């Protein structure tokens, strides 16, 4: 450890169900801008949360200017001079811009808030970050997404800090706004503040940071000066493999009837026309970074959000039908699994059986009597088929483990006998054994002619299970990979392509085809 290091991290460990950070070692000097990059789930956010005091480390040591730093909560990190602009916007919508900025230390006059001092302080900061026409007294909810991200930044630089952490600070910003932010970052660094800069925009990383570190599966695999690094170097370090070594699970693809056809689809969240077709008997993957629009695309196909353009056609035995809403999607044989099973899937507090039996099998009438005998035997079969570990069918679904809860949600759609399964992160937060059994299940469904369209942030998962992979980058469908073309590195490069496309030296990896992917 060098004496001059502002932040020095050694053998940092953190595990939830599985290790998330493994022996991370990192040193950042005073006045240094240090970028951290990595795939989704590589451990970046966990590292930030530990530094910000939101999470406790399991092992290792963190020193700030030589003295041990062990925050017990966010208050400690603030006291130690660490400021953090989080990826999730944390402004309180009903409070004013000025109040949000100074929330930790509201200026007071007697018992009341000193509004004059509060607003005067805020106006300087909002002007500095480039919020030109914002009244500091207006509520934060009146700000656009980009302005709120700048507010987050203003909040972070409102205190004199030793270490400033910026987690995806430019995700919602326009190019001039981002440039302005970067110039402030350079000023702060020149004044001696150390900065951790996390971004998916690799060209930004190379131009803004002095050094860059790459996290992969919780390990720090590369730290280098940005002078001596190129984007391909970073992508290779992030993916770790130059060639895919996936375990093949492929059999012949069945007959290839088109079952779902999306043409020039747009929604509020997906501004670029997206077209794709899904066929029977195939597993299609959807890759992309966080915020690339994976969940938004799946929701649009399921009819959960209104389309602003284009159409989604369900084709069943030659009959075409537009998918207009989720109810109709389900009755036409489409299933959906949201990325967050707690809020989007489970009926917490209800039995495992009920969780598997809503929406129930097709063709049930509203006031039809449910035959509980038939239902229980169907439930028992599902439990056995998916090897769901439970006490009995009446057990509260809350008491099951995450993996078994996920299986129960899949069982729901197996019971429905849906033909098309739209799955968003179907193996998120489940253990390896359950993961494999879910993969086996998907493959067996494919053999029966079902169609699976699954989004995942784990590229390895997609190359293992899928027959082809579509890649979203910055809400554009940029490329389609056939199995023969699979390479984790190429897929990752495609996922990054729209984020780096603004730079002339880096041409887009895949030009958009005129034909649907």
């Amino acid at each position, binding site marked *: 450890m060098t004496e001059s290091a502002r932040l020095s991290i050694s053998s940092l460990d953190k595990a939830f169900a599985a290790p998330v950070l493994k022996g991370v070692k990192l040193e950042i000097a005073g006045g240094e801008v240090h970028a951290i990059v990595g795939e989704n789930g590589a451990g970046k956010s966990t590292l930030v949360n530990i530094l910000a005091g939101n999470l406790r480390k399991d092992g290792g040591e963190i020193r700030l200017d030589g003295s041990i730093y062990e925050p017990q909560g966010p208050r400690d990190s603030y006291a130690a001079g660490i400021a953090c602009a989080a990826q999730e916007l944390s402004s309180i919508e009903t409070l004013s811009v000025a109040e949000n900025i100074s929330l930790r230390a509201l200026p007071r006059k007697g018992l009341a808030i000193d509004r004059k001092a509060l607003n005067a302080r805020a106006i300087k900061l909002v002007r500095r970050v480039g919020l030109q026409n914002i009244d500091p007294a207006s509520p934060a909810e009146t700000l656009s997404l980009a302005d709120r991200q700048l507010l987050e930044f203003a909040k972070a630089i409102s205190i004199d800090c030793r270490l400033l952490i910026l987690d995806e600070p430019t995700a919602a910003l326009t190019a001039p706004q981002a440039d302005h932010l970067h110039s402030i970052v350079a000023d702060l660094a020149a004044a001696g503040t150390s900065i951790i800069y996390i971004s998916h925009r690799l060209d930004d990383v190379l131009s803004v940071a002095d050094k860059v570190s790459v996290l992969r599966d919780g390990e720090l695999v590369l730290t280098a000066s940005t002078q001596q690094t190129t984007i391909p170097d970073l992508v290779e370090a992030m993916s770790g493999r130059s060639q895919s070594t996936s375990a093949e699970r492929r059999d012949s693809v069945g007959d290839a009837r088109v079952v779902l056809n999306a043409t020039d689809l747009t929604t509020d969240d997906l501004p670029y026309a997206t077209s794709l077709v899904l066929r029977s008997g195939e597993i299609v993957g959807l890759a992309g970074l966080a915020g690339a629009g994976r969940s938004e695309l799946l929701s649009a196909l399921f009819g959960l959000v209104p389309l602003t353009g284009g159409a989604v056609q369900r084709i069943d035995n030659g009959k075409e039908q537009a998918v207009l809403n989720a109810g109709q999607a389900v009755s036409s044989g489409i299933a959906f699994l949201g990325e967050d099973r707690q*809020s989007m899937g489970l*009926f917490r507090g209800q039995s495992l059986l009920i969780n598997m039996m809503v929406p129930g099998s097709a063709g049930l009438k509203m006031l039809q009597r449910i035959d*509980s005998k038939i239902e229980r035997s169907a439930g028992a079969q599902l439990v056995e088929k998916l090897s769901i570990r439970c006490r009995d069918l009446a057990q509260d679904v809350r008491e099951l483990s995450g993996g078994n809860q996920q299986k129960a949600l899949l069982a729901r759609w197996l019971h429905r006998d849906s033909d098309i399964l739209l799955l968003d992160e179907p193996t998120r937060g489940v253990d390896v054994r359950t993961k494999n059994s879910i993969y086996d299940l998907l493959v067996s469904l494919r053999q029966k002619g079902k169609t699976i369209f699954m989004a995942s942030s784990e590229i390895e998962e997609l190359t293992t299970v899928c027959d082809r992979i579509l890649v979203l980058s910055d809400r554009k469908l940029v490329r389609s990979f056939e199995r023969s073309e699979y390479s984790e590195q190429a897929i990752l490069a495609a996922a990054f392509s729209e984020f780096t496309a603004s730079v002339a030296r880096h041409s887009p990896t895949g030009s958009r085809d005129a034909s649907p992917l």
Partner: protein
Amino acid sequence: MTKILQSVGRHAENNFILASLILLILFFGLLSDNFFSVITLTTILNQLPALTFVTVGMTLVLIVAGIDLSVGSVMGFCAAVVGVAAVAWGLPLWAACLLGLGTGLICGMLNGLLVAYFALPSFIVTLGMLEMARGLAYLTTGSQTMYIGSKIQSLALPLPGIGVSAALISAIVLVIAAQFVLTRTVLGRYLVAIGTNEQAARMSGIDPRPYRLMVLAVSGALAGIAGIFNAAYLGSADPNAGIGLELSAIAAAVIGGTSLMGGRGSIIGAFAGVLIIAVLQNGLAQIGVSEPTKRIITGAVIIIAVLIDRWRVKHASAS
């Protein structure tokens, strides 16, 4: 009575509510010489139908995580409409009753429309309806109790040969039918799903809006029927009828194990709650407890019932 108790016992989630009810009955029976009498029984049974009707509606609304504060006022308004239609307009009794029912249905549909399709909180919408329907009740009757006549009273009188009134029979039929719908049909299951996790229901392809509209419309219509039976019981239309009834209905539902957070509830349990409230009211009166003390005890019983229920649920899921 024993028949009712048996059906309560069969269907209640467990026997806790039933046991409390029996204990209450025994308690008052021991303390008062007159509790086990035909008069007491008739008094209790006559009070049941109106509260049962609104409680069933309330329970359905609570299960989808809503609330209907307007039931008492809507009941008063509907009773007023029945009175005016029968007396001032000279309509036949069946037509007046149909008009009363339709009035309740329209009030409920209005509630439902605003809650489901304009995404307003049911608390606010039905609070507004509570005020409006009461105002309309006064307007309709000119703030006077309207005497309707003996014909409508036949609905509340024991039927010859059966010994119980048409009102009570229909209330019990309603309880059984609603319990069946809630526990044995797809519709009931969807209501529970929506009340448990609306987003998950939506992502299972269930649009919650028509169901929210429906339960509030049903609740309004049942308040209308309660208005008819209230008018039948009194023989007249009282514009003050049903003041505070929404709170008794919520209390009955909650005593019967319904959660205010939605997703959990039992119609049979709520009916047992209705019985407990009725027995408590009459029993306390019988042993000479004053009106203020009666209210204090009733309030305490509601809180204790929920406390015990909470403890019971926690205990059941822990074991």
